[in-house]
């Protein structure tokens, strides 16, 4: 679907997804204050503890790609996976419960933000190891192919991940075995405290993918309509011929690497310029052009806020996992043997 043919309804749906991601992450950020001992913060009793990676400013990538996915499509994500999970259709309340570490969370409190997953909708998990989702996606695609049908795997990873070995290995593998994988490089220009560009030789993600035999396109990752259109085209190609495709989505990481990172290592100007390209703002302008009313967007925003507030309240009230749960879901063989 080209941006021109975009219906107002679809445009509003894309905006809604982004608004829900934004609201979710703002709330999670608030709840994480003081929750991680890195970057100089203290080990206070925050509601959300440990490294919390926010995708603020990158919502268009998740929303645009996942708009083209079906429930029977699979998805692998990164440490920065809230957006992908929400856009794939997960329950915001169960996600928030997981970030709070409660028994009612998706992972029963075992995973937290970095391992959030919802297998019931094909979301095979966030991952704390950079690039680790790539081989997993490739393997999942083998399973889809053996099953038959035209489902695919969407595989998200960051710009930093293209310098790890599994990027080469996984793309090559998908290429030779002609596997239905949509590789999505979510290029926010930063890898923790390091600008990725200086660490990346050659022409970058897309050129590498093409040289490894995976064709694709680059897109403005802050333009949800452009991402949506590119994902539509690529996923249609994948469903038609079963071979992998690559989407290089260029965006920007507005927040620090983790929620408590002030990101003092980069210039205010750079961030200010990026804020002018806020994907929600860009979408609002385009929606207005399509005849949408500001009020409709305000209603979506308000709805998202309300939904998130309810999720936070539910998470706050939810029970902790029993300590005995620490000993389950490990392995069946020798399940009762955890001290010897």
């Amino acid at each position, binding site marked *: 679907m080209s941006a021109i043919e975009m219906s107002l309804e679809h445009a509003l749906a894309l905006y809604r997804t982004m608004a829900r991601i934004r609201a979710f992450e703002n709330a999670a950020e608030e709840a994480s204050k003081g929750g991680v001992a890195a970057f100089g913060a203290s080990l206070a009793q925050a509601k959300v503890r440990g490294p919390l990676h926010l995708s603020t400013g990158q919502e268009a990538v998740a929303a645009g790609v996942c708009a083209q996915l079906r429930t029977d499509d699979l998805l692998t994500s990164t440490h920065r996976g809230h957006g992908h999970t929400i856009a794939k259709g997960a329950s915001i309340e169960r996600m928030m419960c997981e970030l709070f570490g409660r028994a009612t969370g998706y992972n029963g409190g075992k995973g937290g933000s970095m391992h959030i997953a919802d297998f019931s909708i094909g979301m095979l998990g966030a991952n704390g190891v950079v690039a*680790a989702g790539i081989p997993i996606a490739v393997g999942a695609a083998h399973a889809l192919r053996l099953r038959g049908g035209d489902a695919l795997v969407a595989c998200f990873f960051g710009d930093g991940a293209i310098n790890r070995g599994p990027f080469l290995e996984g793309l090559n593998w998908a290429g030779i075995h002609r596997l239905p994988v949509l590789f999505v490089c979510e290029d926010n220009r930063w890898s923790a405290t390091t600008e990725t560009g200086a660490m990346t030789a050659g022409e970058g993600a897309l050129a590498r993918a093409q040289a490894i035999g995976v064709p694709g396109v680059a897109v403005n990752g802050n333009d949800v309509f452009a991402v949506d259109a590119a994902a539509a085209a690529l996923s249609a190609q994948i469903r038609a011929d079963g071979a992998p495709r690559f989407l290089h989505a260029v965006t920007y990481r507005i927040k620090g690497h983790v929620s408590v990172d002030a990101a003092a290592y980069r210039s205010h100007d750079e961030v200010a310029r990026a804020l002018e390209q806020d994907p929600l703002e860009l979408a609002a302008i385009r929606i207005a052009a399509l005849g949408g009313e500001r009020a409709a967007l305000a209603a979506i925003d308000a709805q998202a806020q309300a939904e998130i507030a309810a999720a936070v309240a539910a998470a706050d009230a939810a029970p902790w996992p029993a300590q005995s749960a620490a000993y389950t*879901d490990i392995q069946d063989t020798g399940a009762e043997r955890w001290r010897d």
Partner: protein
Amino acid sequence: MARLSYVQAACNALHAVMQQDARVVTLGEDVGRGGVFGQYRGLQQAFGAERVIDTPISEATIMGAAVGMALAGLRPVVELRVVDFALCAMDEVVNQAAKARYMFGGQGRVPLVARMPIGLWRGSAAQHSQSLEAWYAHVPGLVVVAPATPQDNHGLLGAAIASGDPVIYMEHKELWGLEDEVDPTRIERLGVAALRRPGSDLTLVTWSRTLHDALAAAETAQDEGLSIEVIDLRTIWPWDREAVFASVQKTGRLLVAHEAVQAGGFGAEIAAATAEALGVPVRRLGAPRIPVGYAPPLEDAARVTPQAIVAAARELVGAPARGA
């Protein structure tokens, strides 16, 4: 019953399982030509290239793809050549395969068997001779199996594929050619040791290729009037505490012998646990903490021999037996 080599027994077991269960697939380097040790002979012809999958030299992705396959409902058997190269896939084994089920709160599981042969292999030097079973025993989420006989390589491979957890399956490179009678109908359970030879003076716990040296040692010791009970652990984790403790309660002494480096080897776990629980004299015999050298005199320095086992047994029995 049929007389089969250790490698053929495993090949037959895999063939049978793949015939019964369409979820079982095999992937790895050279599997299409039967594997460099012949472990996959005939399988691609029988099941096609979509189920017996040739792969590039990409160990990290071989293992990582297997995790993805398993999470998506398949039951992959993963060929990693030797444990030394499996080191190229350690994130995928330890951070992904072993932890996925737990991290995701039980939403997904990782039923896979990762074959990574261990052990010395005449003239193969430091990067092709390691035994690292102790590493995997230390990692929650993993099962560790090390068969010593053709029968076990048939039965335990089947049990490993059926188990539903990630199993590190460690064959021994110097056992490929070992032949014996194999009953293909015999079902094995993981976690159960085998009493290979009864005895009364001390319990000798071992596994993999060292079993054969242990049996030779027990034979020699018998002539000296020393009666050694030999237990083949077979599954390194979970190890069969009950069988080991029952034997040690009878003999009053424990010797653990393995080919892996002694320092930090899994013998330490067995010896420590037994000393804690029963307070009996314990001894270990493993390789010195040296890389494996190429020249025979150097390589031999890393071998645990029947002679060394007998000597350790003798020394242990010299010590006063307690707890019996």
